[in-house]
Structures are given as structure tokens and as C-alpha cells.
């Protein structure tokens, strides 16, 4: 099964084509194709997941030393199992990792890399048991030739390991639920079929992206999900704000893509001209790439992470992206696409780990970006009145947690949070959609919601579960993952080097609790307002509520996949604790080991403090909204408070800076100036030369050569009459004349050249 993982992205790609081709003629407008495909995909993904779990439980015996040596020594050929060139006719075997003929082979990814980073080293210090002494489990790689250039063959293919298997299950499950939800939510939409087509294309791209085996393929997937995001944000493109949001998303991401392209190019050359992820990682891990190169690559790639995963200062597109349909926001802009940046860092973790010296308590860019984002994003969520924007800024903030976790060395914590966040945030978004569906498609929770808890009990309870997880109330899923991030910030990176990140994380937890409680107040409590008051909303049908309940159910339990083993949890049997870490974190030479890489340990006081901070946030918000306590109206009275509110309301002024100043000046004065130069200067020279030549021509014509030229003009004039009606005698005459002059001149020049050269 693991070698056939390419089928999983190929199916939705096929579904995209089918929906476009015949969707409109089908009774359900093509949604049935998408649904069926995703159901199959999900089953297959689970199959891959199970297959991987079995592989980890009983790792294959491979001659690792030989394989590793081949991967690191082969300079001119790709290191994986690829051995054949696919014939030209096999056009299908390209971006979609598939095709008829494949060279296949287990990847070289065993432990015992040349640096001698032994398996035991990773678990040194306060590391937990479970991973350290386990046997290596190489990824399952399958490749086909994609293209050749410079005599080197480049491959496309799939790479299945714990990380990609986990992402496969996550993406296909949430996509499936979103498909179900959408059949109701966008029913009767003006472009129902297109909507489902692009959902399919998105799913295909995302699945291909997470299965990627080479950095080049990663770029392809990265951009394709961006395209789908563009198309779906701008789904209702008749209205200008929507297409503006779509453009903003795409172009902001392109800015980050500069970093992606540059970073990947640096890595390509650093790894001895290879796009192969295993090779790049192994070499970075083994110290075979200069630190400077890794640093440059990491910093460049962080730019890409900032745009794709909505990190401060390139996050501005993400709230605007809420212009798209809500299920799209749940799927693309909360659960899957925006975590592409996190996934990319996780995939290439050795590069970042060595490049940024993460294990050594360096305050590094990744951690700083994450920490700043998680607080600044959370603050912005306080001043939104649009429920989706609250959730969008919350997503920004939560992605900040993940980036920070990666920055402090908590790989598992980041990925664990990615999973829990995907479920609870999808649940929240779909809940918001459910409310809006019942309230005249309004998302303004201040104006149109209120008192919905009795009207929409299922939405209310699932939303509360999602909120609880987001606020990190134990034992909901968010608690486990956020706690692991905070524990990572506390314990990793040398002697507590990331304490500042811990502080930021706790502040973030406090803010999260505050803004979510505020949102819950506006949505579910108080008196119905606006649309909710005019027409009493009703709970939606099962196609909307069932996905909500599924997501809420998962949110309740998913946190237990990575229960700690120590401290309060030492009673948990080994077979139950840290399952996520056990199965997802790669155990092979292409993953970090040694160099200060450790697992965080559960620290009771952090759990208590962060939960306390969350509860305090809930309490304060409760007092403010439910009891009406606190300095209400302070923004009107106090200048400092007002200024602060203004800063938040203007979103730190970044939109003005980008849209009005940077884009505005490029589109306006700079482009016009360039064009002025083009017309007046460059073209001026050309026209001037032409005019002077005409003058010279007239001079020659009038004074010297009249007879000869006359003949030519008359001759060509006669032919011109035959071919077209509008040709002017004079015009053809000119061309011929100048042609003659030019060739005469050329001859003279040639003579000069030859004479010069002969000397």
C-alpha cells in the first residue's frame, strides 16, 4: 500500500477533470464525484496510515549502511531508486506522482549517518523514553523520471513516512467532511460545479504536496494549492472585494515565494545538485553542508512560511481570504493549506535545525516570528466584529504557536498542534458557517447574532467544544498540544534558552481565552440582534451538523494520542503514551538527531499556569460581557486606550503600507515613470534616429539619386497594388531605400572590420 500512495492525490485530480467535463450534466452538479472520490481517498489514506503503523511496529531490515552511502555519495544521479527514463508518451506521469512505469525502491534513510549520530544520542538528557532506542524506519519512496537537464535526471514521486501518512489522513478526512458540509452550504450557488471542481483540485494538490519526495515537487504543490486558494477566495468574483482578496492572497504569497524559490535553489546546489528531500536532509544532518548555506536557505524559506502560513508581517492576506465560502475557509485557510509552511519546515527540519542552530538556545528567526505572530494575531482578534475574522486572526495566532514550536526545537509539539488545531479550527469555522447559514449569510456577530445557543444547540455545543480546545481547557485536544509547545519552549534549547517564548505563549493563551469568550458571548448569549432577531434561526440539516459533530468528537479525543509518560502521567502504559511521537516523528538519517535535539517533558507547573492564564482570560471576558464589569467605554475616555484600539483596528497599518504605499506606488507613479522613459527616452531615440534618417534620405533623394530611387518606388508600388489596397507608394519606397542604404553601410562596415582585424 505504501508504495501506491500516489493513487491518493491522483484520484481527486481525476475527479477535478471529471467534474469540469461532465459535472454540470449530473443531477448533483458534480458534487457526487467529489464526495465519492474523497471517501475513497480517505479510506486509502487510512490504509496508508495503518500500513505505516505496522511498518514502525516491525521495521524492515535493510542494509542501511550501503543505502546511506549511496545516497550521500552519488553526486550525479538521484539517490533514490530511480533507474529508468519514462518514454516521452507518458505525459501523465508528471506532477501527479504516478504514471505507468515506475522505478521503485525503499529509500535510503537508515540511521547511522556518516556523522555518526547514533540512535541513542537523540534521547540523551531529559529526553523521554520511547523513541530513542527504537530501530530506524526508512521512508517508503517511489519515483519516476520527471525530466532531465544538464545530463542529470530529476524525479517526481512519493515519500511516505509518519509525517506524510499523518497529513494524508488529516487532509483527506477534513476535505471529506467539508465536501459533505458544502453540499448543503453552497447548494444553489451560481457556480456549484466549479466550486466542487476546485475543491477536488485543491485536495489533489495538497495531497500531492504532503507526499512530495523532492523540493521541486514541493514547490509545484505549494503553488497549486495557492492557485486553488485564489480561485476559491474569489469564488464570487462578481464583487470587487472578493477578487481583491483573491489577488491579495496570491500576490502576497508570491512575495513569500521569492524566499521559497531562492531557498530551494540554495539547497539544490548545497546538496550537490539535487532536489531530493532525503538527500538534502541527510546531508544537512550529517554536517555535509556549510552552515552559512543552511542559514541562508532557512532564512529564505522562512519568508515563504511567513506568507503561506500567515506569519506576521505577511499575514495580511489571511483575514481577507475569508471572502471565500466558509467551508473553503475551514479547509484551506484553517486546517490544511495554511499549515503548508509548517509542513515544509517540518519536512526539511534538519536544514532549519542546523541552519538556525535551534538546539543551542539561539534566539532564532523562526521562534521569534512565531512568538510575535501568536501574540499580535491574538490581539487583532479582539477588535473584529466578523466572526470569521476572529477565527482568521485566531488561526494566524495558532500558526504562530506552531512556528514557534518548530523554532524552539519542539518538532513533535508543532505537528501535534497542527493536527489538533486542524480539527478544532475546522469545527469552529464550520460552526461559524452554520450560524451564518441560519442568519441570512451574515457573519457580523455584533450586529446579526446573539442568543443562538437555544436556537442552534448542535452548533452551540460543537462550537463550545472547539472553543474549549482552542482555549486549551483540559482534557480537550488543544490543551495537550499547546502544553507540549509550552513545555518545549521551557525545556528545550540548552539551559532554558527559550523562556521568552514560554512567556509569549502564556500571554497568547490568555488572549486566546479572552477573544474566544468574547466571540461566544456575541454569538450564543445575550439577546438576538439583527438577522437573528428578524427571523428566528433554526438548526441546520444533517449535512451541516454531522460534520460538526464528527469534528467535535475528534476534538474531544484526539489530544490523547500523545499523552506524556512522566510526572502525573507515569501511570499511563507505554503502549498508550506518546503514540503520535512514536509513529509520526521520522526515525531515520533524514531526520534530526543529536545536536541538542530532544523531546520536551511534561512539566506540571506549566500546565497549571497556562491553563490558569486561559481560565483567567475566560473569567475576565465573562465579567466584562456577562456581568458588564470593567472599564467599559475606556477607549472613548482614555487617550492611550483609544490609540491602542486604533492601532489594532487599523491592523497595525500594514494593509495601508502594502496596498496604498507599496502596491499603489508601483502600480501608479513607478510604472508610469518607467513607461514614460520607454516612450520618451528609449522610443524617442528610435524615432529621432528615424526622423534624421528620413531627412538624410530626402537629402539624398532630392539632390543626388532621384532617378534610381524613382525606379524602385515605381516597381515596388506596382507589386504592392496587387497584394494589398492600402499600401502607400511612399511607404514601400522608404523601406526599400533604407534597406539599400543599410546593406551598403553594412558592406562598408564589414570592410572596416576586416581591415582592423587584419592588423
Amino acid at each position, binding site marked *: 500500500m505504501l508504495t501506491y500512495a500516489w493513487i491518493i492525490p491522483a484520484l481527486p485530480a481525476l475527479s477535478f477533470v471529471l467534474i469540469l467535463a461532465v459535472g454540470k450534466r449530473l443531477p448533483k452538479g458534480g458534487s457526487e464525484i467529489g464526495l465519492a472520490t474523497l471517501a475513497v481517498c480517505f479510506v486509502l489514506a487510512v490504509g496508508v496510515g495503518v500500513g505505516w503503523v505496522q511498518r514502525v511496529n516491525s521495521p524492515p531490515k535493510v542494509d542501511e549502511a550501503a543505502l546511506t552511502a549511496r545516497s550521500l555519495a552519488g553526486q550525479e544521479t538521484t539517490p533514490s531508486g530511480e533507474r529508468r527514463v519514462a518514454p516521452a508518451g507518458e505525459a501523465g506521469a508528471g506532477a501527479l506522482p504516478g504514471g505507468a512505469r515506475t522505478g521503485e525502491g525503499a529509500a535510503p534513510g537508515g540511521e547511522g549517518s556518516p556523522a555518526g549520530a547514533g540512535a541513542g544520542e537523540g534521547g540523551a538528557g531529559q529526553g523521554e523514553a520511547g523513541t530513542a532506542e527504537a530501530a530506524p524506519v526508512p521512508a517508503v519512496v517511489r519515483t519516476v523520471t520527471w525530466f532531465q537537464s544538464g545530463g542529470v535526471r530529476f524525479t517526481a514521486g512519493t515519500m511516505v513516512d509518519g509525517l506524510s501518512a499523518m497529513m494524508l489522513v488529516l487532509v483527506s478526512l477534513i476535505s471529506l467532511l467539508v465536501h459533505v458540509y458544502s453540499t448543503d452550504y453552497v447548494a444553489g450557488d451560481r457556480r456549484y460545479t466549479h466550486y466542487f471542481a476546485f475543491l477536488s483540485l485543491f485536495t489533489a494538490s495538497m495531497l500531492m504536496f504532503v507526499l512530495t519526495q523532492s523540493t521541486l515537487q514541493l514547490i509545484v504543490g505549494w503553488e497549486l494549492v495557492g492557485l486553488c486558494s485564489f480561485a476559491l477566495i474569489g469564488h464570487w468574483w462578481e464583487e470587487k472585494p472578493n477578487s481583491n482578496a483573491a489577488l491579495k492572497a496570491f500576490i502576497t504569497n*508570491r512575495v513569500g515565494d521569492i524566499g521559497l524559490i531562492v531557498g530551494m535553489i540554495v539547497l539544490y546546489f548545497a546538496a550537490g545538485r539535487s532536489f531530493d528531500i532525503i538527500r538534502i536532509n541527510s546531508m544537512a544532518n550529517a554536517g555535509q553542508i556549510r552552515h552559512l548555506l543552511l542559514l541562508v536557505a532557512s532564512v529564505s524559506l522562512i519568508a515563504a512560511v511567513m506568507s503561506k502560513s500567515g506569519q506576521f508581517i505577511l499575514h495580511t492576506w489571511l483575514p481577507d481570504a475569508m471572502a471565500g465560502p466558509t467551508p473553503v475557509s475551514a479547509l484551506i485557510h484553517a486546517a490544511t493549506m495554511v499549515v503548508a509552511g509548517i509542513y515544509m519546515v517540518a519536512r526539511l527540519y534538519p536544514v532549519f535545525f542546523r541552519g538556525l542552530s535551534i538546539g543551542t538556545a539561539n534566539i532564532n528567526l523562526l521562534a521569534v516570528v512565531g512568538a510575535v505572530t501568536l501574540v499580535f494575531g491574538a490581539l487583532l482578534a479582539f477588535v473584529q466584529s466578523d466572526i470569521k475574522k476572529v477565527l482568521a486572526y485566531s488561526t494566524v495566532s495558532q500558526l504562530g504557536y506552531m512556528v514557534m514550536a518548530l523554532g524552539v526545537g519542539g518538532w513533535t509539539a508543532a505537528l501535534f498542534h497542527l493536527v489538533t488545531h486542524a480539527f478544532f479550527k475546522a469545527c469552529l469555522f464550520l460552526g461559524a458557517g452554520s450560524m451564518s447559514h441560519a442568519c441570512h449569510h451574515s457573519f457580523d456577530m455584533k450586529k446579526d447574532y446573539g442568543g443562538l445557543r437555544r436556537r442552534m444547540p448542535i452548533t452551540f455545543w460543537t462550537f463550545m467544544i472547539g472553543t474549549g480546545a482552542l482555549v486549551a481547557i483540559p482534557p480537550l485536544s488543544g490543551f495537550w498540544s499547546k502544553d507540549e509547545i509550552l513545555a518545549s519552549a521551557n525545556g528545550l534549547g540548552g539551559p532554558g534558552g527559550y523562556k521568552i517564548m514560554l512567556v509569549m505563549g502564556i500571554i497568547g493563551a490568555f488572549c486566546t481565552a479572552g477573544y474566544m469568550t468574547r466571540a461566544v458571548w456575541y454569538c450564543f448569549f445575550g439577546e438576538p440582534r439583527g438577522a437573528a432577531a428578524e427571523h428566528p434561526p433554526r438548526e441546520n440539516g444533517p449535512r451541516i451538523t454531522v460534520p460538526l459533530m464528527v469534528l467535535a468528537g475528534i476534538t474531544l479525543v484526539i489530544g490523547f494520542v500523545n499523552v506524556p509518560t512522566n510526572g502525573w502521567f507515569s501511570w499511563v502504559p507505554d503502549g498508550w503514551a506518546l503514540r503520535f511521537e512514536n509513529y509520526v516523528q521520522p526515525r531515520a538519517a533524514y531526520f534530526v538527531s543529536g545536536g541538542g535535539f530532544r523531546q520536551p517533558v511534561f512539566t506540571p507547573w506549566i500546565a497549571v499556569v497556562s491553563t490558569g492564564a486561559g481560565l483567567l482570560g475566560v473569567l475576565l471576558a465573562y465579567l466584562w460581557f456577562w456581568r458588564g464589569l470593567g472599564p467599559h467605554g475606556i477607549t472613548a475616555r482614555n487617550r492611550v486606550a483609544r490609540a491602542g484600539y486604533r492601532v489594532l483596528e487599523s491592523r497595525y497599518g500594514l494593509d495601508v503600507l502594502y496596498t496604498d504605499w507599496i502596491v499603489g506606488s508601483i502600480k501608479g507613479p513607478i510604472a508610469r515613470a518607467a513607461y514614460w522613459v520607454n516612450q520618451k527616452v528609449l522610443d524617442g531615440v528610435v524615432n529621432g534616429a528615424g526622423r534624421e534618417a528620413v531627412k538624410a534620405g530626402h537629402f539624398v533623394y532630392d539632390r543626388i539619386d532621384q532617378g534610381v530611387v524613382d525606379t524602385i518606388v515605381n516597381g515596388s508600388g506596382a507589386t504592392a497594388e496587387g497584394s494589398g*489596397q492600402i499600401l502607400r507608394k511612399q511607404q514601400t519606397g522608404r523601406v526599400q531605400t533604407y534597406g539599400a542604404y543599410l546593406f551598403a553601410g553594412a558592406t562598408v562596415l564589414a570592410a572596416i572590420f576586416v581591415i582592423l*582585424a587584419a592588423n
Partner: protein
Amino acid sequence: MKDLLNGWGLTAATFLPLVGAVVMMLLPKADEALHKVVALLTSSAVFAVVVALLANFDYDRTRVLQFGQNRSWISVINSRYIVGIDGISLPLLALTAFIVPLVIIYSWDHFPEPHNPKAFLILTLVLETGMVGTFVAQDLILFFVFFELVLLPMYFMIGVWGGEQRQYASIKFFLYTAFGSALMIVAFLSLYFLAKGPGGAPLHTFSMIELSRWQGAGLARVTGLVIFGGMFAGFGIKVPMFPFHTWLPDAHTQAPTQGSVILAAVLLKLGTYGFVRIAIPILPAAAREWAPWIGLLAVIGIIYGALGCLAQTDMKRMIAFSSVAHMGFVMLGIATLTSFGINAAIFGMVAHGLITGMLFFIAGSVKERYHTLEIRRLGGLLLQAPRMGWLLGFSAMASLGLPGLAGFWGEFPAILAAYQPAAGLNQNVFRVYMVVAALGTVFAAGYLLWLLQRVAFGVPTEEFVGEHVHDMHLTDYLAWAPMIALIVVLGVYPNLIFRITDGAVVQSVTALGR
């Protein structure tokens, strides 16, 4: 079959269009349908010949000239009729043979004013001879003849069937390129006189094969630089490179749709092809000295072309300016003098031909429906003609270099190659170029999506609201579908081109290193 192709394949591909043109000259002007059929049949026959060539091409030996012919031609200057194709010329030859029938199909029902299909189609066929000939010629004089042969039909096409400022545009196009050609022929003549054999005896040859073997050995440095400069003028203007590009927006904007498509798809490639085929292999040392400057002009062109696009108010003129930016990527790839870069450049030529050709087709159809291309007056194309709107979106995405479509494979590898240019070139300079070029991809997204937003999204302007706009015609489907398909196929499986070019490029780059 194989023997026939070996002997006559390339000659047939080159001169069949001329035969067709002669036949059409003899037919009465009034019988338009007959002319269309003859033209289409002729170009299809050329396409069939090229397909046969493709089928019989030895893909394991792409670096060797195949289907070669070497006959005496103008013996007094030892210029010979040498034709042949290798992996570098094959994709461009195929592109030409592929595009021309589509252009004729597209013309079927809409000939631009003043109509006259006979003359228009004859010119198209003459143009095809010129283009095909340029790509198969292996003798400098033969090359030059075909290179120049292209000018005249295009001149008439713009000057007769063009827009309002056709006379200015056509004259500018003709004179500007002829000016470049003049310097180029000087360079060719100098090569003829200066090339010396191993023994010191003058070669007196125009054969590209022999000259590439000679590689400027024994030539004074400055002389080499100057001769390269002459070729640079000829090819660089044709590409066109910044700052010699000003003929292009005028020519493109004023040309009829068919002319614009051929200009974008094939004519611009004559210049870049000249660099890869002639200038660099014959004078590698001079090429190395010129490369940083070519690279500089290329990246300036990328940014400058994009800025020019942002300033445009006319859709067609904007697409024309985008060519300046795109050809910048191609030239950057060439300037790196690496196999990766030159492969990317050839891919970029084909991709740009298809994608920008497609954009011009769409612009032409928009013009036909709305009688204007002023962006301000357009909008809501997706509502009034959804298929055309989607295709505009598709082509815009392809043009901005979206992976999975053909444009990406011309852009990304070119940027990549700039990170580590050929030995002897200044790495730091090229790395700056790399970053600037990467920045150019953002601009590309900017202007193309902005165009898409203003033309396709939103609702129709008041002027056109409620007006019935015909979506695609049958001829549109027939002409566009193959291009769309090829853009996707090449994007998904780029090896279709890379494996053809790679052998030849590697060989020519290795030869540079000597």
C-alpha cells in the same frame, strides 16, 4: 521513408509553404474558400512532415545534426545549402509547424480588414518558409536569407491588415530589425574572412558546424567582442532585449491577431535561437565576456517589462510588454551559459510561444466581440463569455509561471541556473540577477492577475451590459484546444522537451568550456 526524410525532409518542410503560396497565386482571388483550403492543407502538410521527422528523430543522439543535407549553393563565397536539426532546433521547428495551421484555422472566419484572404494567407505561408528555414539552416548566409525573408511578410501583414497606426508600427518593425540584421551580416562576413583552420589557413566558410568547431581560435579579444556585438545587435533586437524592445509593443499592438500570434510564438524566438545556435557556440570566449551584460539587460527587461505592463491601458499592448519580461527570463537562462539555463531558455521559448500566442488569440477575440481592448471599458468577461474568460484565466496563470503549466519550466530553471553560472562568470553578479528575476515573478503575478481582475472578473461595464456576446466559435475551439492541451502536457511532463534539448545543449556547453 527514413531515406526520403533524410534526404528531403527538411527541404520539404521549408519549401512546401512556398509551393503552396505559388499555387495560391495562380488561383483566382474571388474563390476564398479554395484559398483557405489550400493554405490549410499546405501548412498541415508541413506539420505532417515535421511529425514524420519527430517520429524518425533519433532521441538518443539529440546532439547530432540529423536529416542533414549539404549541397553547394553559392560557390563563389563558399556558402552552401546546409540544413539539419538537432535537439536545439527540433522543439522550435515543431512549434512553428504546430502554430501556423492553428493560425490559419483561426483566420477561417475572421480575416481582418481589408479582408483579402488570398494575400493574407500567401503571406502567412511565405512567413512559414522563412521561419522553418531559419531553424533548419546550418549555413550563416542561408540562415540570414531566411531570417530576413521573415521580415517582409510580417511587414505587409502589419502595414496592411494592422490597426490604426499600422504604418508607423510596420515601418518601425522593419527598419529596426533590418538595422540589427545589417550589423549581424557584418559580423557574419567578418567570421568568413577571419576564421582560420588549424594550420592557419583561412577557412572561408559560412558553415555553422565548421565555425563552431573553430570557436574563434586565434581571434584577437577585441575583434571577438566586436563581432559578437554585431550578432548581439541582430539577435538582441529581434528578441527583443531591453533597451531595443520599443518596436515590439507597437508591432504587436498594431498587428492583426494572427500576426501578433506568429510574432510572439515564433519570430521573437529567432533572436534567442540565434544566440544559442550561432553567437555563443562560434565565439564562446566573447560570449563569456558579454554574458554578464546580457544577463543585466535580461533582468532589467524582466522588471522593466513588468512595470511597463502595469502602466498599460490596452490589453493587447500589455500582453506585448509582458513579452519583454518573459524574454528576459529566456535571455537570463542563456546568459548563464550553463546547460540548465539554456535548456530552460529553449523550454521558455516554446512555452512563451504557446502561452503568449494564446493570450493574443484571446485578446483578438475580445477585440472582435467588444471592438475595444481598452481595459477600463472591459469587465465581466466571465459573465458574458465564460469560456473565453476561463481561458484568459488559464493563460494568465500559465503566463505567470504557475507550476504544472508550461511557463514554469522556462522560468524556474532559468532562475536556478543563475545561482551558479558557468565557470568564469561572476557568481555574485548572477546571484543578484537571480533574486531580481525571482522578484520579477511577483510582478508577473501582479500585472496578469490585475488584468484578469479588470477584464474577466466583476460585471460588464455599462456600455456592454445586456449586450449579447458570442462565446467561442468553432474555429476558436479548433485553434485553441491543441495549444491549451500542449501547455498542460508540457507543464506536467516537461521531459517532452528537456530530453530533446538536453543532449544537444550539454554538448554545446561542454564545447564552451574548452
